[in-house]
């Protein structure tokens, strides 16, 4: 077997290899392969119904794989039932045992460890401190708020020191303020305990804030696995680019003159010189490029240096820390979105009137070359 002969490696602590899952005729997970590193905060990000929970449940052992194999710490998992896997899960509904108090909920998984009552009580108290709920041991499950239940579910799993903690949208049920606070705490907790976290969310901002790396999923497939900055700055496809933040897309054609220089002729943007290392396609090949709204700068007059085009202002919205503009440019049907930070106080400033001509400038490094689909 290939898997067992390979060296144990922290880089592929969890290794998902060519895994598919179908429910009857429906393909919930479609040929997914990826590796998760030891100790990292890894997120599965995607719209509702894209298969995140299904993949997580396959890691936990609640769903079998239809095809492929999952390895955790170099052990193939297909024949390992949930209660023998070195993973624990925080359920979307938290699944707190309603007939037990907080202490017994947290100590639930310790039965097999044959600990003394004193040692067990001490461990539970430590966990209650860790999740910042000291003195809550005797509370009944129905006396807890959503945020507290979430912490109990976390403590109940962490007390077993799993190799991997799986979290299924654990913050989804909390209100915005509590969610942001829990994000910070969850991140700090993960650093503190050093356990590999696999975190499911449909909230891109949450994924960007928390994760070391993110797998973007859609329709049962993994589109891209990268760091938050990597996903934002170098998305591979248009789908990823528009799922993480906002992006302007332009169709273009490659122009090459020997191997020394290359350029892209893009609709509305004109000819943009590119480094030959980045642009490997042959002369005449169609490309799709993207530019994030905040990579443009706006100015009333033509800037002295750099690439610039003229556009007509369609709409402007003041959004606090930044303003969002839409401009139409010649040669492109859809308007271009531009986001610019409000670095100065704009007291009494007038919004630029609709139809006003403004200059958009950008640097060639801001251009992302996307895979054509």
């Amino acid at each position, binding site marked *: 077997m290939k898997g067992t002969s390979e060296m144990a490696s922290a880089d592929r602590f969890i290794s998902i290899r060519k895994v598919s899952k179908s429910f009857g005729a429906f393909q919930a997970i479609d040929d997914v392969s990826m590796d998760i590193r030891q100790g990292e905060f890894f997120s599965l990000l995607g719209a509702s119904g894209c298969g995140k929970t299904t993949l997580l449940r396959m890691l936990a052992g*609640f769903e079998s794989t239809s095809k492929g194999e999952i390895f955790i710490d170099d052990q193939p998992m297909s024949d390992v039932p949930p209660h023998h896997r070195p993973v624990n899960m925080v359920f979307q509904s938290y699944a707190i045992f309603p007939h037990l108090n907080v202490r017994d909920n947290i100590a639930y998984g310790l*039965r097999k460890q044959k600990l003394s009552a004193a040692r067990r009580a001490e461990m539970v108290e430590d966990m209650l401190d860790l999740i910042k709920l000291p003195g809550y041991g005797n509370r009944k499950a129905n006396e807890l708020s959503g945020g507290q239940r979430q912490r109990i579910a976390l403590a*109940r799993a962490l007390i077993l020191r799993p190799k991997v903690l799986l979290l299924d949208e654990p913050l989804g049920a909390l209100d915005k303020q509590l969610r942001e606070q829990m994000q910070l705490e969850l991140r700090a907790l993960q650093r503190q305990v050093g356990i590999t976290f696999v975190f499911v969310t449909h909230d891109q901002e949450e994924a960007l804030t928390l994760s070391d790396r993110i797998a973007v999923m859609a329709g049962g497939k993994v589109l891209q696995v990268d760091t938050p900055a990597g996903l934002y700055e170098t998305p591979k496809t248009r789908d990823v680019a528009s799922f993480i933040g906002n992006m302007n897309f332009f169709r273009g054609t490659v122009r090459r003159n020997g191997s020394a220089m290359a350029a892209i002729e893009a609709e509305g943007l004109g000819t943009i010189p590119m480094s030959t290392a980045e642009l490997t396609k042959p002369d005449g090949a169609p490309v799709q490029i993207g530019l994030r709204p905040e990579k443009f700068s706006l100015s009333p007059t033509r800037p002295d240096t750099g690439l610039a085009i003229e556009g007509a202002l369609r709409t402007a919205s003041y959004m606090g820390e930044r303003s969002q503009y839409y401009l139409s440019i010649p040669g492109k049907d859809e308007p271009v979105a531009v986001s610019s930070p409000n670095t100065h106080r704009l007291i009494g400033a007038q919004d630029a009137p609709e139809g006003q001509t403004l200059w958009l400038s950008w640097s060639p490094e801001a251009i992302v070359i996307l895979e054509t689909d």
Partner: protein
Amino acid sequence: MSSYIKRPNRALQLYAVIFLIVLYVPVLFIPLFSFNDSIYVRFPLQGFTVKWYGELWTREPVWNALWNSVKVGLVVSVISTVLGVMAARSITRTRIRGKGALVTFIMMPLVIPGIIFGVALLVLLSRMGVPLSLYTVGLGHLIICLPFAVATLLPRFEGFDPSIEEASADLGENGWWTFWRVTFPMVMPGIVASLLLTFTISFDEFIMAFFLTGTDPTLPMYIWGQLRFPKEFPSVLAMAALILFVSFALVFVAQWVGRKGLEDQE
């Protein structure tokens, strides 16, 4: 607007009172006449006595019949509740084809007249050469009680989130331990209710017992037999009064356990 709905309704109150009177007054005659100093059940009352209760105490066959009914009731309630738990669990926790048809099939004995089941079982058992005894009565009662057990337990299982059992598995417990540490305590109120209900049903069941009793009568069979002897009738009333009292107590306990269980689960 809600005051319109909550407004007291005289007619409805009157109806409720009449309903309760019609329901319970005939039953109240039983304890009343069990203290009456006459072997005839008729007004005017002849005076207070507890001698029928004393007579009951000395009557060997009464106690035998009572003990037979208790034995059958206990065994039937335990077996039908265990089977009911297994059925409710598999109906709610597994993906099986034709689930609706299966549930209908299990519930069928509720609507099939007992006399048909009684005759059918009698024919079958005598063909197979099985002698009639308390076992055959128990078998008949099991058929009647099982749908009640399932109907009592099914909502309990439907009412709890399957991820709670998954959480137990996730925390390292196998199916057996998960059942005892999570499933069982959570469906406990349903189990108690099912035990009480099926025991009560078996305890006063007559038609199946009529067809399937051998030489050992159950209590309803015995009482029925005694109706031919007017002299015995007052002590039958005394026994009925006692049973009435115990039944009321059981129902109240069952209600209390059920309500407490629901509160815990909120």
